């Protein structure tokens, strides 16, 4: 039998029973759509997290006080159990490292802010002028904290957009004096809105010089030191140098944790990638179920069409021709189901993106290809048994059935 004839014959046989064909296509479509949508969600989550992390700034090395890993017995630990504080001096010392470009100390706490009789609890961040560039933030109005000695900052504050709205309303905030805790600050700038993110929400943040923040919190310690390496390649070097400098300053004890953003990113990337894979695997089970349905329906179809199979044999069809006809039919139905499922899945993913614009729910290419090919392969594999059964039918008995 010629290939076009075989395809036309299988198509006619498939459409000859529309209910059967549409049920099969539906089952296959649900399986493929499940793979597409679920991997879109999984990969969307991965992308979302990765994007959020990248928005924190690039080439970042973060220094945290205290060791998070336990690295065996250290005589130093036996004597001093509490880690030393990270101080502004520590931060400033890091500027000496060759691969470090910028250093941003960060002290964080909460405080009350008041203006014109309005009082509000806010998140207070004490930092320096480099904070803006390192965190890739931008200003809506005014300017950021001025450069200068980290230990004696001017009484200037930069406030978030939401705080501006709440305290000043339609009034101009720039140049106004606000009270933060027991000190007065002049508002020099307003942050532009960044929306909800993984990091600090700058909309509700008040940023002041780090020395003033420390004085206000009555502590010497820093919450973090953010270090920007000169380039992506120098991140590792920066990490080593930073660790070395801190160690020297802390009497040879490595009592800080230095993490690179890349490491965090890679971990999340791997974690969520695995999650996507697992979800795809679960969705693939529905494809296997669809495959078994294909087998079932094709077996029923063989029983229903015994007379036709007997006739085809009487008319000179070989077993191979009949097997190919049934296999082609199973493959065509699976392919149709896979295509319908692909469109359904893409539609659902688009709907999710429409509903949650910040969530990048795009199915990854590998998942789409894997889903489609799994559908085809299961359809054909599960079509083999019915097709062989059809090919083996005894023509005499098949023809006797009326």
């Amino acid at each position: 039998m010629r290939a076009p004839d075989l395809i036309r014959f299988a198509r006619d046989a498939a459409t000859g029973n529309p209910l059967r064909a549409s049920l099969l296509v539906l089952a296959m479509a649900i399986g493929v759509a499940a793979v597409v949508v679920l991997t879109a969600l999984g990969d969307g989550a991965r992308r979302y997290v990765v994007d959020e992390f990248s928005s924190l700034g690039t080439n970042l090395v973060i220094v945290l006080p205290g060791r998070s890993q336990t690295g065996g017995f250290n005589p130093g630990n036996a004597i001093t159990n509490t880690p030393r504080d990270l101080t502004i001096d520590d931060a400033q010392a890091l500027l000496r490292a060759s691969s470090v470009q910028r250093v941003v100390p960060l002290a964080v706490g909460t405080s009350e802010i008041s203006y014109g009789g309005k009082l509000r609890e806010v998140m207070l961040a004490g930092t320096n002028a480099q904070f803006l560039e390192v965190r890739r933030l931008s200003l809506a109005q005014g300017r950021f904290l001025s450069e200068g000695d980290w230990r004696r900052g001017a009484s200037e504050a930069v406030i978030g957009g939401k705080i501006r709205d709440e305290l000043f309303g339609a009034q101009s905030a720039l140049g106004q004096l606000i009270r933060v805790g027991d000190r007065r600050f002049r508002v020099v700038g307003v942050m532009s809105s960044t929306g909800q993110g993984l990091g600090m929400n700058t909309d509700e943040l008040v940023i002041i010089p780090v020395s003033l923040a420390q004085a206000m919190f009555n502590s010497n310690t820093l919450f973090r030191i953010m270090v920007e390496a000169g380039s992506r390649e120098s991140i590792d070097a920066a990490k080593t140098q930073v660790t070395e400098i801190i160690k020297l300053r802390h009497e040879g004890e490595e009592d800080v944790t230095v993490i690179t953003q890349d490491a965090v990113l890679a971990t999340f990337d791997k974690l969520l990638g695995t999650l996507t894979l697992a979800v795809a695997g679960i969705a693939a089970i529905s494809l296997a179920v669809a495959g078994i349905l294909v087998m079932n329906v094709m077996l029923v179809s063989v029983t229903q069409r015994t007379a036709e199979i007997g006739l085809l044999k009487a008319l000179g069809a070989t077993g191979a021709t009949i097997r190919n006809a049934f296999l082609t039919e199973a493959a065509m139905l699976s392919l149709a189901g896979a295509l319908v499922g692909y469109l359904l899945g893409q539609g659902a993913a688009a709907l999710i993106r429409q509903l949650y614009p910040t969530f990048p729910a795009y199915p990854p290419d590998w998942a789409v290809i894997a889903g489609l090919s799994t559908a085809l392969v299961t359809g054909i594999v599960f079509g083999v048994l019915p097709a062989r059964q059809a090919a083996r039918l005894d023509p005499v008995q098949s023809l006797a059935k009326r």
Partner: protein
Amino acid sequence: MGSALIELSAIERVFHLGDSEVHALRHLELAIDSGDYVAVMGPSGSGKSTLLNLLGLLDRPNAGTYHLEGRDVTTLSPEEQARVRSERIGFVFQSFHLVPRLTAAENIALPMTLAGIDPAQRAERVAQALADYGLSNRADHRPDQLSGGQRQRVAIARATIMQPAMILADEPTGNLDRATGEDVMRLLEELNSRGVTLIVVTHDTLLGARAHRQLLMEDGELRHDSAVLEKA
């Protein structure tokens, strides 16, 4: 006479029904000449349908040999037998056995489609067959839109489209009224007059009497052969 089209010798066909053995054909010796018109008669279960299936290569004997056009076809592989069926044998069934989803033209073309003949030639031969059997205005009708007589004419057109050496007809008029049955028989006999060997299985003695040669089957044995009588 030249060499026979069909030569059966020492054919045995045994079916196992549970524990019992049923001898559908017992020690059958038969030769049918090319161009002959043979009626196979006998009561139900006499083995006449088994004989027809055997002649059509749909069934294999348990013992004995079957020579078709001088070639031993019992030893052929299933694929080779399918080829012989495709090229040398045409079937006409009592219940027509048309494919319901295909049009009359597509049903007639089916043997050529299966044999992989190219579409242009197929269309030409189908058009000719439709005209020959008076079905030209029914070409695009599906079987359920055709009368019984038209269906059997489609089936005969399908059986002859590959220009076979013989036509095997199993009760071809069994599902038809007398007048249309008569038409169908005339068509078949006309084919026979053009040299196609015609073998008809029937209950109908009147129908059987029209054949040149009558075979009477009983209990899997050939009881009566009109050709043998004439010689005697």
